[in-house]
C-alpha cells in the first residue's frame, strides 16, 4: 500500500518540478492521442452519419462490421499496422514505422470504429421525420447532415470521449508501432509498462497517476461542452 502512496508522492513531485522527461512524455501522449481522436472524429462522424442515413444493399453487414470494429483488440491492430509499415511491407517506402505518426495511425484505426458505431446509433435514434423536416426547411444535403449532427451532440460527444479514452490508455499497439523510443515515441502508457518491467514500481505508479489526471482533465473539458448544451 505504501508503494501506491509513494507513487502518488512521486507523481506530484514529477509534475510540480516539471521534470522535463515526464513533461515530454505527457505532451506526446496528448498530441498522439489527441490527433488520433481528431482523425477518428472526422472519419467516424461523417461515415457513421452517412451509413445511418443511407439505404444500400449490404447495409446490415456494414453496420455489423462497424459494431465488431468497436471491440477490435488494440494489440491486433498494432500487429497489422506494423506489418503494413515495416520496411519490407507494402507501405514500407513511407519509412514511418517507429514514429509518433505510426502511433497516430494505429490509434486512429482503434478509435474510428468506436466513434463510427456510436454516431450510427445516435443518428438513428433521432426522430424519424426530423430528416424530412430539415429537408423541408430547404437544407442542402450538407446542411442537413450538419444539423443532424448538432441535434445528436450529446451522444456524439459521448462517442468522442469513448474514442479518446480508448486510445489515451492504449499500450499494446503503441509499443509495437512506436518502439517506445526515449524522447521520441515514448508516451505515458508505454513508459509505464517499461518502468514496471524494470521493477521501478514507484515511477510506474506515478506515471499511471499522471495518465489518469490527463485523461480526467480532457474528459472534464469534453463533459463541460456536452453538458453545456443541456437546455436551460
Amino acid at each position, binding site marked *: 500500500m505504501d508503494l501506491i502512496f509513494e507513487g502518488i508522492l512521486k507523481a506530484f513531485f514529477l509534475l510540480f518540478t516539471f521534470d522535463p522527461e515526464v513533461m515530454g512524455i505527457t505532451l506526446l501522449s496528448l498530441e498522439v492521442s489527441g490527433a488520433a481522436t481528431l482523425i477518428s472524429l472526422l472519419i467516424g462522424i461523417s461515415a457513421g452519419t452517412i451509413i445511418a442515413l443511407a439505404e444500400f444493399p449490404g447495409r446490415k453487414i456494414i453496420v455489423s462490421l462497424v459494431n465488431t470494429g468497436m471491440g477490435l483488440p488494440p494489440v491486433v491492430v498494432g500487429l497489422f499496422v506494423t506489418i503494413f509499415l515495416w520496411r519490407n511491407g507494402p507501405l514500407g517506402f513511407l519509412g514511418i514505422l517507429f514514429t509518433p505518426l505510426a502511433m497516430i495511425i494505429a490509434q486512429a484505426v482503434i478509435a474510428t470504429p468506436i466513434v463510427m458505431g456510436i454516431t450510427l446509433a445516435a443518428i438513428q435514434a433521432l*426522430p424519424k*421525420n*426530423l430528416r*424530412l*423536416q430539415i*429537408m*423541408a*426547411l*430547404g*437544407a*442542402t444535403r450538407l*446542411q442537413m447532415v450538419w*444539423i443532424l449532427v*448538432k*441535434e445528436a*451532440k450529446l451522444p456524439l460527444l459521448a462517442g468522442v470521449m469513448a474514442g479518446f479514452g480508448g486510445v489515451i490508455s492504449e499500450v499494446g499497439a503503441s509499443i509495437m508501432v512506436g518502439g517506445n523510443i526515449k524522447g521520441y515515441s515514448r508516451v505515458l502508457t508505454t513508459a509505464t509498462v517499461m518502468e514496471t518491467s524494470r521493477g521501478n514500481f514507484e515511477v510506474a505508479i506515478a506515471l499511471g497517476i499522471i495518465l489518469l489526471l490527463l485523461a480526467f482533465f480532457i474528459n472534464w473539458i469534453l463533459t463541460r461542452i456536452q453538458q453545456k*448544451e443541456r*437546455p*436551460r
Partner: protein
Amino acid sequence: MNGSRSILEAKNLQVRKAGSLVLDVPLLRIEEGEILSLIGPNGAGKTTLLQAMARLIKLSQGELCFRGENVSSNHAQFEYRRRLAMVFQEPLLFDTTVYENVAAGLKIRGIKKSAIQRTVAENLKRFGIAHLAHRSARKISGGEAQRVALARALATQPEVLFLDEPFSSLDPPTRESLLEDLESVLRETKTTTLMAVHDRMEALRLSDLIAVMNHGRILQVGPPGEVMNQPLDEFVASFVGVETILSGQVVRKEGGSFIASIQGHYIEAVGKVELGESVVLCIRPENVTLMVPPFKEPTSARNVFPGTIVKVTPLGLFYKVQLQCGFPLVAYVTSHSLENLSLREGKEMVASFKATSIHVVRKKEKGRPVSLNA
C-alpha cells in the same frame, strides 16, 4: 378550372412501398391561394400524398408541376423545397432556443442577420410566442411548440405550405386557439396550403377544398359544402359525417321525386333515377327532426316515421340519438331539446326529415357510383 396555371399539379402520382401501391393519384390541382384539406382514415395515404407533393419522398411514377414546371431533377427538387414549408404532427424542434428554431430556415438560406431578426420577431408575434423567444425549445408546452413549428415554417415566406395533422396531438382548447391564429395568418398571407386533418370540423372551417382519401386514392375533391352534403359514395358519406346511410330500391317515380323501398318502409326523395334502380340514401343527422307522439303540428316533411330510441350519446355540444324506425336513423339534438322532450332510451318518438334533404347516391352496376342532387 380556367386558363390560368394551377400553382401545383400532380399527374399520375404513384408511390410504392415494399412493392405495394400506397398512393395512386391520377390528377390533383391546387390553385394559388387555395387551402385544401385532406381527410381520411389512418393509413389512407394523406401523409404520403403530402410528402410526395412536397417532393420529400421519391415518386415511383408520375410528375409534379410547380407553376407549370416539372419538378424532377435533384436540383429542381431542391429549388422547389426552398419555396415551400412543412409542419408535421410532432413539432420536431431543434435543441436550441425558440428564436433559433424560427430562424433556422432563414439561416439555411444564408439570409443576413438583421433581416433574420426582423422576420423572426414578426413571426413570433404572429403566433403569440414573442415572450418565449429565448426559452429552450425543450421547455415549452405542446401547443407552444407547434406554434414555434408554424412560425418557423412561415418565416421563410413559403409559396406552398404543407401541414400534416399539425393539431392532432393537442388538446381541444389549445387546438382551437391555434386554429384561430393559423386561420388569420393564412388569410392574411394568402398562402396556398395543403393540409391533412384528422378532424373534419377543422377541415370544414379552414378549407376552400376538401379531398377525401382512402387506400391511397382520392375519392372526392370539392368545396366543403359539396363534399359534406353530396358525398360521392358510401365511404365518403360515412367519413364526412353522414350518420344514416340506407340502401334500397326505387319502386315509384313521380316527376322529379321518387319513392324508395328501404327494408320494407317507403322513403320519399328527390332525384333522377330509374325504376328498380338500387340507390343509397344519405341523411345527415342535423336534418332529422324528432317529435313526441302524439303530435298535432302539421309538418311539411313527407317522411314521417315512428320509432324507438335505441341509444343516446352525448357529443359535447349536442346529443346523438339513435332510433330504430324499421331502419336505423340518427338524429342530433341539442341538450335543450333533450330536456324538453325528455329523450331517453326506450322512448317512443316520431322522426321526420324532408325529402329534399336526402342525398341520393345511385349505385351503378359497373363503374363508380354517381351522386345526384344539386
